[in-house]
Structure formats: C-alpha cells, structure tokens
C-alpha cells in the first residue's frame, strides 16, 4: 500500500466522491417520486398489483452492467452519458420501492382511514396527511435498501466510463495499484453508512409518534 497517494490526490478523490453521491442519490429521489403514485395505485387495485409487483422483480434481475450498456441504444444517448447510469438506477429504485409503498399503504389500518374519512378528509388530503405518514417506516426501510445498493452499484458504471469512485477501481486495476482500489471501497462503504444513518434519522424525525409509546 502506498498511503501517501491519498493526500496527493485529494482533489480527484473529493471530486469523484461528489459525482458518486449525485449519481447514486438523484435516482433515489426520482425513484421515490415515481414509486409513490405507482405503489398507491397498486395498493388500490389488486389486478394492477398482480402485474406491477412481478414486473418489478423481473426488472430487478437484469444485471446493472447490462442495463448501463443497453440503455444508450434504447435512449439514444452517448455511451459515456451519465444519464445512462441515472436512468438505470432510477429503474432499480422504482422496482424496489413500488413494492415497499404498496405494502406499506396496504398495511395502514382500515379503521384509521375510516376515521379520517369520517372527520371529513377528502381522499387526496387523507392520503397526504394520514396514509402516507403512517407508511413512512416501511418506506424508509425500502429507501435505505435502495440508497445503499445504488451507492454500491454506481461503481459498476466505471466499466462504461461513468462510475464516480468506481473510476478508482478500473484505474487501480489497470495500474496494478491496490491502494487506489482500497480507497474507493472504503469511501463507498463510508458513504453508504452515512446516507443510511441520515435516512434512519429522517425517518425518526418524520414519525415523532413512534417515540411517544402511543400505539398507532
């Protein structure tokens, strides 16, 4: 190991860390925005659910390297376009979250929904202020899985030249330089742990009632 490689390349490492974070987390945000309405539809409509959920698990089986490579042909983008990675990871995120959202919404107690309806909540407002908050714990669990696996998956993009910290893997391998690879692994795991911790905190913040010891 050549440890002083790290201080000599701080600029590169910080820049790659930034790119990596964006490439991993933008898809989580877009995926969440797409998955909530889809999951809501699936929780309402068993017929749709029986199509959406298996379709999502099939999407999940396609290897990310394959998706990164094939997307340019489908989207008409350049192979080096970061958009390919963002779209691919968004697909995975949606596939993962649709199931979480629909399970979480289906698990909201019918009595609570009925009470909200009786109090005069219209369906739209009831969804936003009653059902969605109650779904937060399951949703956060899904988001954690999506965020952590995206952070690790971005690095595969390095094989097509867009991989954030994954670039340290391909470069390190070509130059026979393990320090560079190890740096990338440690930073990716650390980034995953930090994001995971932040999501847990955000989940707690969004569900103050779970700390009150009052059953929901």
């Amino acid at each position, binding site marked *: 190991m050549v440890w002083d490689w790290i201080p000599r390349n701080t600029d590169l490492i910080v820049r790659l860390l930034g790119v990596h974070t964006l490439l991993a987390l933008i898809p989580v945000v877009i995926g969440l925005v797409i998955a909530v309405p889809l999951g809501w539809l699936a929780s309402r409509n068993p017929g749709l659910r029986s199509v959406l959920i298996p379709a999502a698990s099939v999407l999940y089986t396609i290897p990310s390297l394959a998706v990164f490579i094939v997307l340019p042909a489908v989207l008409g983008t350049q192979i080096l376009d970061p958009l390919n990675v963002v779209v691919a990871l968004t697909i995975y995120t949606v596939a993962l979250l649709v199931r979480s959202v629909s399970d979480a919404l289906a698990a909201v107690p019918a009595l609570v929904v009925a009470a909200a309806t009786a109090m005069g909540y219209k369906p739209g407002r009831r969804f936003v202020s009653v059902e969605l908050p109650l779904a937060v714990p399951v949703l956060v669990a899904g988001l954690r899985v999506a965020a952590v696996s995206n952070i690790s998956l971005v690095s595969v993009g390095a094989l097509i030249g867009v991989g954030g910290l994954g670039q340290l893997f391909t470069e390190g391998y070509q130059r026979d330089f*393990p320090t560079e690879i190890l740096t990338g692994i440690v930073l990716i795991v650390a980034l995953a742990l930090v994001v995971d911790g932040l999501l847990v905190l955000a989940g707690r913040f969004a569900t103050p009632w779970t700390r009150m010891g009052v059953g929901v």
Partner: protein
Amino acid sequence: MSLLFSYLFDAANWSGPTGIPARIGEHLFYSLLALALGAVIAIPLGALIGHTQKGGFLVVGIANGMRALPELGLLTLLVLLMGIDLLPVTIALAVLAVPPLLAGTYSGVRNVDRGAVDAARGMGMREWQILTKVELPNALPLLLGGLRAAALQVIATAAVAAYVSFGGLGRLLIDGLKSLDYSQMAAGAILVALLALAVEGLLALVQRAVVSPGLRGGGKRSPTAEITRSTTPEQIPEPAGATP
C-alpha cells in the same frame, strides 16, 4: 431491432470454446462455486444465531454492511492481491450470496413455532436434533427463499468476472463494449437475465419439491403469514437482484 439480435441469432456464435453455450457453462460454474462458499458460511451461522436466539442484530448488521461493499472494487482488489485465479473471483461473488442466505436462514429458524420446538425438547431431543429435525425443515421456505435471492444476485453479478479476464457471459458485455458491438452486448445482457430467471424458476420448483406439504397449506399458520407478522422489513430476505 434486428441488428440488436444479430449476434444472438448467428449460428457461428453458438459453438466452440468461446461460443455462447461454453460461456453459459463458465458463468454457471463461477456462480455455483460462489453460492457453495456463501452457503457454507451463511447457513450454519444463520442457523446458530436463529437457534440460540442470540445475536440477531449481527445478522442485520452483517447483511446491511455487506450489501454496501462495491463488487467491482472487491473483485479488482482481490485479483491484484491474490493473482488471476478462481479463488478471488469466488470470494468476491460469495460476498453477495452471504447476506440473503444469512437473513433467510436466520429468520426461517427464528420463526419456527416455539411450541413445536418446546415439544421436541420435551420429547427428549437434543439441541442438535431439534435444529436438524425440527427447526431447519420448518425453516426451509425462508431458507430457500434466501438461496433464490442469492442465486439471482450472484448470477447477475458474475458478469463482472469478465473484467478481470475470466470467461462467462460477461465476456460478451466486455468484448462487445471494447469493439462497440451493440448486438454482442445485447446478447450478453439478454442471456444473463434469462439465465438468472431460469435458475430462479428451477429453484422455485426445487423449493416446491423439498418443502414439507404441511408448511405449504393456506392455513392461518402459512410461512408467509409468519414472515409478515414477526420480522421487521430489514430481516426479510432482501429482494432478489440489483447487482453489478
């Protein structure tokens, strides 16, 4: 579209040592080695933790921590340190198999009806007998669920082995990328996905064949009901797939 499939449907690519059948064979070989190594580590560990009901937090911690490990980094690092050999490839892929197998075995054993375990103990079974004759057979649905998820992960990811100059279906992706041959890359992508789905389907059949009929019925104690009731989302074997 027909251009996209031209590699796949060219008979010349279906024979010889670099033909598609040989690549599928290599791909399955690496995957099988990795699954075996993962199973040897994860199943005894999960069974032990589930049986003693101690250290459940370890399962969640290990499963989540290992999921964050970037496969490509692990593989390139191990190959640089250990040389171009089957062992580093097997270890790097086995790392993917451990979390779902561990979570499946652990939650399977932990969720076995305590009444059945107490009854076995009351009948004079030793702890080892309880584990092998009562808990593991009852845990099979979740354990095999974990195995299916692990197989999917490993098969989908084994493609990266081609980057460190191994064979397998990843060769089509990497070679195709080098020569910008889209039909070759598409063939690789389609074949990996089909292979993963085929193995998953096969394992679903195995699961149906080996799981005791008593665990399958639609009664109120169906295994799925057990999972939804008594495990937190984190402990449910992770959904299949999403791998490098």
